[in-house]
């Protein structure tokens, strides 16, 4: 049938089009469902063990429920407080009432611990007051509290107490950046004895940079060699590069201890060859940390560089030579710029992985070489201060994401590939 419509187009009317779209949808639905069901297990796995914990961590870094849940009456009474003079009897009465409950729930210590972060000595003050409440008695409470500990009359203490009653707090994040809020809420530099975190972050970034640089300097020639060798030899070299992957990090790190310790193999050799006259401290310091980390990170830097180098045709350097460039000029102005995406990818990968190192610095580093992860573990396991641990983790995550963003802007994340 060759009938054409008035506008000269044969066939499809608008209603036909919609029905065609529906048909297409129906036809593709089954494929969509099938592919979705194939990736579903992985998707659920990632959501459960990756996305969810990170979200919880981020929430925990600002969450602040200890005081709010334990001291509702006190916080309600503090609502009308002017913040200038010591609060009046109603507040202390409410405090006594809350303490009765917390003593029963055994949560007085938790509240004390939370306030103690910001007011040193607050925990024992709360426990002492708890014991006073247990002894019984009636109001007026203000005098009794002040008699128990005169610090109950401190105005800054009550300001912090009021602030600690908010559901969310910037306290942990600020502390992680060596900042604090004073009684009025203004942000300022933290007390010197608590300002350790900027130093730790700087140290973490510095060690990561050193490791990244070391892997690049050592790995670039290896990657080049891998890319230009005939396949037979390249395969052997590739196995050597990948060999460390087959051993656990723990084993490799402890082997470094065997090699580098004062009575270790390397020191014995140095002494025997009379290169040094006494045993050199090679481990439990910055040198040992960077060395062991470089060893572990080398393949991560080499592989992306190698994969980019592999894709650069040999004719480019030849073309440069035939056009008059010497071997060095050809390498620097034609070959190296083309390897930059690989260098960027490899260095980024190593830098980001290095930021999170825990076990290696813990085993082969000294006290001055512990990185952020060490303190995350410390706050999680020993101090039981999960807010602080989460805040450190959140900041580390932020640094990583910022790096990704910068890299993506200049190189493109799709360039990252292994092998």
């Amino acid at each position, binding site marked *: 049938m060759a009938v054409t419509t008035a506008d000269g187009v044969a066939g499809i009317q608008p209603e036909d089009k919609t029905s065609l779209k529906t048909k297409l949808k129906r036809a593709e639905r089954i494929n969509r469902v099938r592919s979705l069901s194939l990736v579903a297990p992985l998707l659920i796995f990632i959501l459960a063990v990756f996305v969810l914990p990170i979200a919880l961590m981020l929430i925990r870094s600002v969450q602040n429920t200890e005081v709010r849940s334990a001291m509702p009456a006190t916080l309600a009474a503090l609502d009308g407080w002017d913040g200038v003079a010591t609060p009046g009897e109603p507040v202390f009465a409410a405090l006594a009432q809350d303490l009765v409950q917390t003593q029963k729930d055994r949560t007085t210590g938790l509240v004390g611990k939370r306030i103690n972060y910001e007011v040193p000595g607050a925990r024992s003050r709360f426990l002492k007051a708890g014991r006073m409440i247990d002894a019984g008695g009636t109001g007026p409470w203000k005098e009794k509290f002040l008699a128990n500990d005169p610090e109950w009359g401190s105005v800054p203490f009550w300001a912090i107490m009021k602030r600690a009653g908010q559901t969310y707090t910037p306290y942990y994040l600020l502390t992680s950046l060596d900042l604090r809020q004073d009684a009025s809420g203004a942000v300022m530099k933290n007390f010197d004895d608590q300002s350790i975190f900027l130093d730790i972050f700087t140290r973490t970034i510095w060690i990561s940079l050193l490791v990244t640089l070391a892997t690049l300097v050592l790995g670039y020639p290896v990657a080049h060699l891998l890319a230009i060798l005939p396949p037979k030899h390249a395969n052997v070299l590739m196995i050597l590069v990948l060999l460390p992957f087959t051993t656990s990090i723990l084993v490799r790190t402890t082997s470094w201890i065997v090699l580098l310790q004062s009575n270790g193999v390397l020191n014995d050799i140095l002494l025997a060859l009379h290169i040094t006259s006494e045993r050199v401290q090679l481990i439990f310091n910055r040198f040992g940390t960077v060395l062991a980390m470089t060893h572990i990170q080398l393949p991560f830097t080499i592989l992306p560089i190698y994969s980019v180098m592999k894709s650069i*045709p040999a*004719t*480019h350097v*030849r*073309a*440069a*030579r*035939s*056009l*008059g*460039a*010497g*071997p060095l*000029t*050809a390498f620097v*102005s*034609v070959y190296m*710029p*083309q390897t930059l995406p690989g260098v960027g990818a490899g260095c980024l990968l190593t830098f980001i992985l290095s930021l999170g190192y825990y076990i290696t610095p813990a085993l082969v580093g000294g006290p001055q070489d512990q990185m952020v992860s060490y303190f995350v573990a410390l706050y999680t396991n020993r101090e039981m201060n999960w807010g602080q641990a989460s805040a450190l983790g959140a900041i580390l995550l932020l640094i990583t994401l910022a790096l990704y963003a910068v890299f993506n802007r200049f190189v493109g994340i799709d360039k990252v590939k292994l092998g």
Partner: protein
Amino acid sequence: MKLPVSASESFVEFAGIQKTYDGEVLVVKDLNLRIRRGEFLTLLGPSGSGKTTTLMMLAGFETPTVGNIMLDGERIDAVPPEKRDIGMVFQNYALFPHMSVAQNVGFPLKVRGVSKAETAQRVARALDMVELGKFATRMPGQLSGGQQQRVALARALVFEPKLVLMDEPLGALDKQLREHMQIEIRHLHERLGITVVYVTHDQSEALTMSDRVAVFNAGIIQQIAPPAELYESPENSFVAQFIGENNRLPGRIESASGTLCTVKLANGSTVAATLTRAAGVGDACLLSVRPERVKIAPAAGAVDNLFEANVAELIYLGDHLRVRCVLDSGAEVVVKVGNAEDRPVLDVGTRIPLGWRAQDCRALDAA
């Protein structure tokens, strides 16, 4: 300023060149080749014939195992590629992807320390020459294959090299663009008067572009001659086979007189043929006749060899017709019949007389 040199003097000379990669197989066996100044010479041959190795030795990326190469009167065996002053165009263009078109073309000038102002001027001129003046700021990835090829050409010419080498530069282009670029390169060569050594495995490309063609096979130059001579008078059966189409009839040379000879075919019939250097009296030979030189129903006396044949197959190709005929001896002969209005009416099974002249039939080596 160099003194003018006569065209016959060799500009490039390969003398007794041998090349082996593994110490066992010779990729190039005893190569002796002279290239004249301003000449367009094509190295033609199947893959593995040694033509690219020859080019790479000239460019300086391979060293001859034996023998030496002279360029413009100087031995260049020990000269590194960057000092040879030879422009080269690669098969896949080898444009630097991180540099713009202008930077690519300016590269040879930059490494030679030419001033920025002069570089800009010469780059602009080179790009105008290949009609890409407007593309200077583009990146190579944004150009089509043909445009990339022209940038590569401009880059190889901008520093006015002594010699330009091209390694299958049109291999990656489609047929139409390839034919267009062939003419364009040919015109550039004529306009600039440069010496070009061109490598290809495409025989029609070699015939279209070259002043002379060197046919390579198994590491040896089989014949070096201008295109017409190569096609009309191949010196051996490889060349006859490799360049154009060819009917092959095996036989033995019975006798010879002057430039002609008599060849006895397997079934006893005799053919008058042209004697070549490839075979002598008494030798087994292979007769070579071009399909367009075989005439169907020739006029009396027009051909030296006349046979009866049956039409076995007709293939219609538009501008011409290919007729596969079987001679009574059993040999097959393909005939090309032009699609003119007076072409003979043919059907499969028709019995026809066909024949060819002795000078169109060459007695070549039997290999």
